[in-house]
């Protein structure tokens, strides 16, 4: 029987990134994907004729440029286009826009508050400082603070030195920043509600937290750490939808000799004498491999694919305690024409930007209270965009695809599973919000796909529908991610590794977990990582 050098379970973006690096390092790698298509949560699917849906992830800003270069993704069709800013519509018929031009941005803010307009530079400086501190950590394995191994000590020292290099003021802000709520943080800079709401949304996207929850200032950084071709913090969109990212990865993988099997759901990992030997597919087929790397989240991997007896109690306890509650849903809509927003001038770049309707922190927080109570938000927070205004390849001419990311949607409704009726109610909460700002919107809808955490879990396999494969709170970051003691992509089972977003540095279409895991695997194999270019400089 053939034994692959490595088998990657799950063809999401991190699984593919990991597979690509290992294949290029000379391993013979097999990727197993349960669906009939690869991509995990980064897919473009034609769900209605002529319309491509980026039906899960919808923004490409975090994807590491080092990975795009190493794996030659542009050659395989990946092209990222920046959004033209963003906007928050206000309930009084106006809107606040974020323009890419610094001065237009300031003048726009000055419509609401001259003070806030001039506070932006200091805010931006302080956030940039924090980003610069954290960004280099993305492409490094988190050190284990309980370890005395030279490598961990070295990494800790590196962290300590970076911290010591900050000014006393920066140190103080850094310490506070990690534990503050985005709402309190913004209060220190801005006075206008809609301006605060405009920034706060980056503190909650993808999390089971409200803007008033401590720790959300850090989440903001997680969303700001991305870059589009050197423009740090920019959000962009992949031409052809988010599937273009994984399509390019799959092509790169195949060109370098890798093998992908779709429709191949892994039932469990084969373990002999504490060492992973292969996998057994749902149909019973056994496939052998020297290394098994799981792109699935940590709960799915260790509570479903691995037998309990193979794992130490303390590890199991920690995996069970891993927080992976879903908090968002998605409504994807095919439109027969471009919706109109009476508040927005017809020639506004905001049509090519991300749009929001939550104009106060309080509305955001109240939406979160609904999540805590186990129901979808009555007045949801939407991160909405019409990618076809930037990328005409996704719909027939003149027609449009609209992506609505929706918060909050709990993994269970009042303790029970979602039903189809619930799903329709959830969709209606979204549509009725849009209609308030875009009369006639309903009539433009050609087709709609609604994804609650239930659908996200069922299709993509993300436990509880959590898009980050685990919440981004301090107890699950850095050396705590996914669980203490196993934050370096290895597991208690020999030869079994993790490479998904459950691992450091976490979720978003970033690819860093997949790459970092590959680096650790190659280290264990004592193989040079020749095809891995150094992380970008932060100077």
């Amino acid at each position, binding site marked *: 029987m053939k034994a692959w050098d490595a088998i990657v379970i799950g063809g999401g973006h991190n699984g593919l990134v990991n597979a690509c690096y290992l294949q290029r390092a000379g391993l013979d790698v097999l990727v197993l994907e349960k669906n009939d298509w690869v991509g995990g949560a980064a897919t473009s699917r034609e769900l209605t004729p002529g319309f491509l849906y980026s039906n899960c992830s919808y923004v490409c800003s975090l994807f590491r440029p080092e990975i795009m270069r190493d794996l030659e993704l542009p050659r395989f069709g990946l092209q990222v286009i920046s959004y033209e800013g963003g906007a928050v519509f206000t309930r009084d018929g106006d809107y606040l826009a974020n323009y890419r031009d610094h001065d237009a941005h300031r003048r726009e803010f000055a419509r609401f508050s001259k003070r806030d307009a001039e506070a932006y530079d200091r805010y931006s400086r302080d956030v940039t400082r924090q980003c610069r501190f954290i960004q280099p950590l993305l492409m490094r394995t988190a050190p284990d603070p309980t370890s005395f191994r030279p490598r961990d000590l070295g990494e800790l020292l590196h962290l300590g030195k970076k911290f010591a290099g900050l000014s006393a003021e920066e140190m103080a802000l850094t310490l506070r920043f990690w*534990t503050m709520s985005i709402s309190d943080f913004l209060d220190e800079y801005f006075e206008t509600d809609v301006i605060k709401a405009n920034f706060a949304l980056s503190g909650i996207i993808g999390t089971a937290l409200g803007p008033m929850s401590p720790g959300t200032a850090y989440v903001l950084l997680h969303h700001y750490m991305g870059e589009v071709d050197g423009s740090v913090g920019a959000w962009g969109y992949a031409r052809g939808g988010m599937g273009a990212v994984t399509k390019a990865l799959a092509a790169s993988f195949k060109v370098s000799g890798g093998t992908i099997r779709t429709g191949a759901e892994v039932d469990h990992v084969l373990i002999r004498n504490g060492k992973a030997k292969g996998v057994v597919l749902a149909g019973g087929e056994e496939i052998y491999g020297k290394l098994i790397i799981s792109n699935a989240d940590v709960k799915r991997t260790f509570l479903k694919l691995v037998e309990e007896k193979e794992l130490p109690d303390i590890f199991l306890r920690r995996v069970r305690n891993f927080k992976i509650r879903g908090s968002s849903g998605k409504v994807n809509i095919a439109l027969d024409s471009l919706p109109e927003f009476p508040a927005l001038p017809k020639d506004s770049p905001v049509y090519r930007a991300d749009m929001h309707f939550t104009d106060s922190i309080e509305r955001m927080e109240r939406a979160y209270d609904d999540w*805590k109570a186990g129901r979808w938000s009555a007045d949801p927070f939407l991160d909405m965009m019409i990618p076809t205004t930037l990328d005409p390849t996704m719909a027939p001419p003149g027609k449009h695809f609209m992506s609505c990311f929706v918060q909050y949607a709990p993994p269970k409704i009042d303790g029970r599973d979602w039903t189809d009726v619930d799903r329709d109610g959830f969709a209606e909460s979204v549509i009725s919000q849009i209609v308030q700002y875009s009369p006639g919107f309903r009539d433009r809808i050609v087709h709609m796909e609604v994804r609650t955490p239930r659908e996200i879990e069922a299709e993509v396999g993300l436990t509880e529908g959590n898009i980050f494969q685990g919440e981004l*709170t*301090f107890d699950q970051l850095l*050396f705590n991610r996914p669980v203490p003691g196993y934050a370096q992509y290895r597991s208690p089972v020999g030869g079994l590794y993790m490479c998904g977003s459950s691992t450091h540095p976490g979720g978003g279409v970033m690819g860093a977990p997949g790459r970092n895991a590959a680096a650790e695997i190659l280290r264990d194999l004592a193989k040079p990582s020749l095809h891995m270019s150094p992380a970008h400089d932060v100077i």
Partner: protein
Amino acid sequence: MTSSDLNWDAIVIGGGHNGLVAAATLAKSGRKVLLLEAGNEVGGAARTEEFAPGFRVSSIAHLLNRLHPDVVKTLELERHGLTVERGDFVPSVVLSKDGPLTLHGAYGEVLTGASSAEQSAWKELRAQLLRYAGVLKPFLSRRPPDLGNMSLAEMTGLGQTALALKRLGKEDMRDFLRVLLMNVYDLLDEQLSDDRLKGLLAFDATLGSHLGPRSPTSLLGLYYRLAGEIGGLAGAQVQPKGGMGAVVAAIRAAAEKAGVSIRRASPVARVIVEKGRAVGVVTQGGETLRAKTVVSAVNPATTILDLVGPREVDTGFVRKVKNIRMKGDAAKLHLALDRPPQFSGVDAAGHKGRLVIAPSPVHVERAFNPSKYGEFSPEPVMEITLPSLVDPSVAPSGACVLSAVVQYAPYALKEGWTSGKPKFLRAIMAQLETYAPGIGATVRHAELLTPADIEARYRMPGGHWHHGELQADQMLMSRPVSGWSGYDTPLEGLFLAGSGSHPGGGISGAPGLNAARRIIAMRA
């Protein structure tokens, strides 16, 4: 010679417990110390006051659970009448429709009313909480490290903490680092199953802060509580005989014995600043008093913005001070009752303890939600004591005093407290009636102090007990503001010694003691 001509070594502003501790400690080092108290009595929010004819009650703080042992020792408080014995410890009783659950001894050394599985889960969790709180405990009696400019002593202090961490053992240390900034709700879900027990812990973690149990970092509140001790045992609590005023009386006696001059009814109008140095104060009566050192044990924002004034300090500093979050959420209820209430299912010993209405963490979280939007909890959570059962002298014979700390009552109530207060009182009484049927009919007099009332009466801005939210970003190096966490201020000769400084509020005396030690160390 009038006192104006005297040159004091130190003037302490504010005769709350921290001011008294700071003054006494400074006086014991040989300094000539004057303490100025605005009110007619010292004690601040730790007084015993009459709220209805013949009914007396501890004004705000009603349980003693964290008076720092260094304070007791330094000021020899036992010699001044403060004694706490194991027999004085009172239990915590969680009231519930399913029957009460009781934590006996020092924070539940023994748990009754719960299943045996829950008892062993609690035993494990309690030990873990105390271990982890123990790692943090040494910070209470130290200046927070000055990151930009670390001294040898500070390095050593941090080194000791690292060692304490190491002593936990590898897996314990990993868990410590994981849960440090976690929310209390999830941790309780991981380890316990009894809603009553979880409700109590969720309540204790968030008491006195603008957090709900689900707010990340809320577990720190529980650590803070358990880092405190009384009678040598962490987590223990007593109802002081004579109320909190008796505790303050002991500290005052120690201060007077050490030679502190105490002047009551002497509110300070401003701190005199000359060339960037604080050199004395002017009282509201117009008297000028000069001193080498001025120690403010009142609120940091009051000190800087009102007494010093923004003109003598920098804008960035003023910004930081104005950004200290200090809007209280806790109200205080005092009831004069015709007779002791009967809480359903609670025994006599339980009635002498702390009775808590916080039936589940979800309930506490739900009570928290409206406070975010300037609304009070329709079903408030609270801790109740019946001090007259422990010390009959505080109520007329046969009658009873009820003292309760009630959350959440946001300082800035959107509808205003004038119309909100009676509504909130009704909401509280409805809760009490549920657990002590018939109590409403025995109320002779009710006094509800909202945070707005507390602000006005006790000069505590925002009505906040801690003089600043005790949350992760306002702790340690960031308390009261970053860059000035070691009791110093940008003005030479001016020090902060109140609860607004590290480590924070509660009747501990630690800020006052630490500040005095800092001043003494500087001149040594």
